[in-house]
């Protein structure tokens, strides 16, 4: 199918999908915590935009509500909270040394290809846009995991966790007609509670190892040292 023949909505969704995955890549290669948090907020804004667009084109008012929830939660509340924590713990000037930045980014690229490969079996059940959207959201989920593996700071881990959630949300809006309202509210509630708990944990970790470098959380072992 030629991309120029698809509707405006579908073209816009494809562009947004590309931008969402690009945001994940930017976070993956970024060593400064405040920039990671900023890109996370941008990714949230892209999601809110995609949801609003879906609401407009499918004429489904329920999507406007989810768009508003996303806006408040993922663009405003969580990033602001993370930003304040980072500044309060005085780690906003630190730049994390990422070992092997090139191979991490190349690994990310191969994860995107892998996601497309995994989603091949559903090609016959849907059209191009849905396939792209699901593959891209799986890629965002996997990139979030890669980010948690490659970064050592707990704040970066939380950003990875939240971007996984973003990927899942993108799949839910684009590939389906939106999750049932009760489920969506439940997920939003879980994300909010998780964000607050993460904040609590930063203080616990900071007071127990005097840093947020999770590599130093290494007291528990399978065998006695």
């Amino acid at each position, binding site marked *: 199918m030629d991309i120029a023949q698809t509707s405006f909505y579908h073209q816009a969704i494809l562009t947004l999908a590309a931008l969402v995955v690009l945001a994940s890549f930017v976070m993956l290669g970024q060593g400064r915590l405040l920039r990671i948090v900023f890109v996370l907020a941008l990714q949230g804004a892209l999601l809110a935009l995609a949801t609003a667009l879906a609401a407009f084109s499918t004429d489904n008012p329920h999507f406007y509500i989810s768009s508003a929830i996303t806006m408040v939660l993922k663009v405003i509340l969580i990033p602001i909270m993370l930003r304040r924590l980072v500044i309060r713990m005085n780690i906003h000037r630190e730049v994390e040394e990422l070992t092997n930045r090139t191979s991490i980014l190349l690994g990310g690229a191969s994860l995107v290809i892998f996601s497309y490969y995994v989603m091949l079996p*559903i090609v016959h059940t849907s059209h191009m846009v849905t396939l792209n959207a*699901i593959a891209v959201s799986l890629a965002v989920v996997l990139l979030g995991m890669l980010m948690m593996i490659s970064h050592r700071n*707990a704040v970066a881990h939380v950003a990875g966790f939240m971007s*996984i959630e973003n990927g*899942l949300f993108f799949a839910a809006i684009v590939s389906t007609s939106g999750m*049932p309202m009760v489920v969506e509210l439940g997920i939003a509630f879980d994300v909010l509670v*998780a964000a607050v*708990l993460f904040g609590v944990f930063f203080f616990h970790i900071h007071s127990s190892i005097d840093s947020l470098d999770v590599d130093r*959380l290494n*007291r528990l072992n399978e065998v006695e040292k």
Partner: protein
Amino acid sequence: MIAVYLILLIPLGGIFYFAATGHKPNAGRINNWLNAATLAGSIWLALDVLIEGPWLSSDGELYVDSFNVYLIVLTAFVGLTTAIFSAPYMAHELRVGRLNNNRLRLYYSMYQGFMLAMYLVLSTNNMGVMWVAMEGATLATVLLVSLYRTPESVEAAWKYFILCGVGIAQALFGTILLYFAAGQLHTEGGSENALLWTVLYENANLLDAGVMNIAFVFLLVGYGTKIGLVPLHNWLPDAHSEGPTPMSAVLSGLLLNDALYAVVRCKMLVDGATGSPLAGHLMMGFGMVSFLVAALFLHRQYDIKRMFSYSSIEHMGMMTFAFGVGGPLATFAALLHMTVHSLTKSAIFVTVGHASQVAKTQKMDRIRGLIKTQPEIGWGLLIGTLAIAGFPPFGVFTSEFLVLIATMHDYPWLVPLLLLGIGIAFAGLFRNLQPMVYGEVPRGQKAVAANLFPVMLHLALVLWLGLSIPGFLSNWFAQATELIAGSSPL
């Protein structure tokens, strides 16, 4: 069917009540009463379901059949006995200064929060809500794992949070794919109903097989993280060993079961859609690997709670394997094993909690001579371990024997592996148990105030289930088996 609302509303009220008053001396007793009330509610619900058959709420959001109602009763029962144990245990921890009033409030409030999440996982009919409740269970327990605020417990809780959070995100992706598959059916009631398990189950043969297969892989990995399947098990021994003992008992006895319940519900849908044994084979593979790896890891442990949490992984692996084998006999055995394992394992953790209070450590090489210092704890640990290792005449023996028979029938070449694993696990447990129970008493070791009534009750029930399963219970299991496997073993 007010009972089902009762068991959801009582813990919900409990969360808020204890958030305000959990530090008062009577909080433990009130926690017991709340759990007793939910147990009564669950028995009422069970009787209703047994007499009138499955029940679906009018809006379709809650569904109770003989499969989940038995788990609800089990959850309520273990919740109550653990609460009975936890009241004096927590009072002791407060006295020795490991806790303060705020954390006690948090503890009681989140105990109820965890119970609410468990009941919601079991009684909901909506696969999305099931996911939300499962994540809710993680959120409720994560601060309890780090309740003592030691560096080790904070590390364990962080690991638990991140691993389970990321793991369960995979299950959400699986749920979205499920919804995507259902969205193409155009079922009546529109998309709001498309995630209801009953609707999906009725239309299972119409769901697209390719999508459902991918969805199941994600669901298995996601909920499998919570079951503690190898290689996603890393959080489990840490969380169990560093948290307060009542938490270890409910995590091991309840959370793991309920995560397995979620996987089995998904398997029922996928089997209907694909008609191929792929889902079962995946569960068999994961289950067998977990079973063997955990049995080997038992030998390397130095911490008593870590050792028993590896034993939990081993048993969960066996159950996953048995559900994967499928057939009526294997399913019946798996259901029985879920029951006896959670009764035995929570009894063991309760005993272990007392044992580590006696010895003032969880390191196994410093726990010695329990049977001389405090005979009831020594005996409790000895009998509990005998039961969990699968000795006759306890119930674990019966269920493991049934699993072996079913495997012998369908996959005879896997039987040696199962026997090997049981043998290795047995050796690992007893090697460490012997000196702890019989060894020389260290100087100055004193008995502690202990309430071993829950332990004795659990072990007596396990013994009873091993000697003769009462008729109503076996009928109940048979009904559940018929739901899952299609035919009855009796």
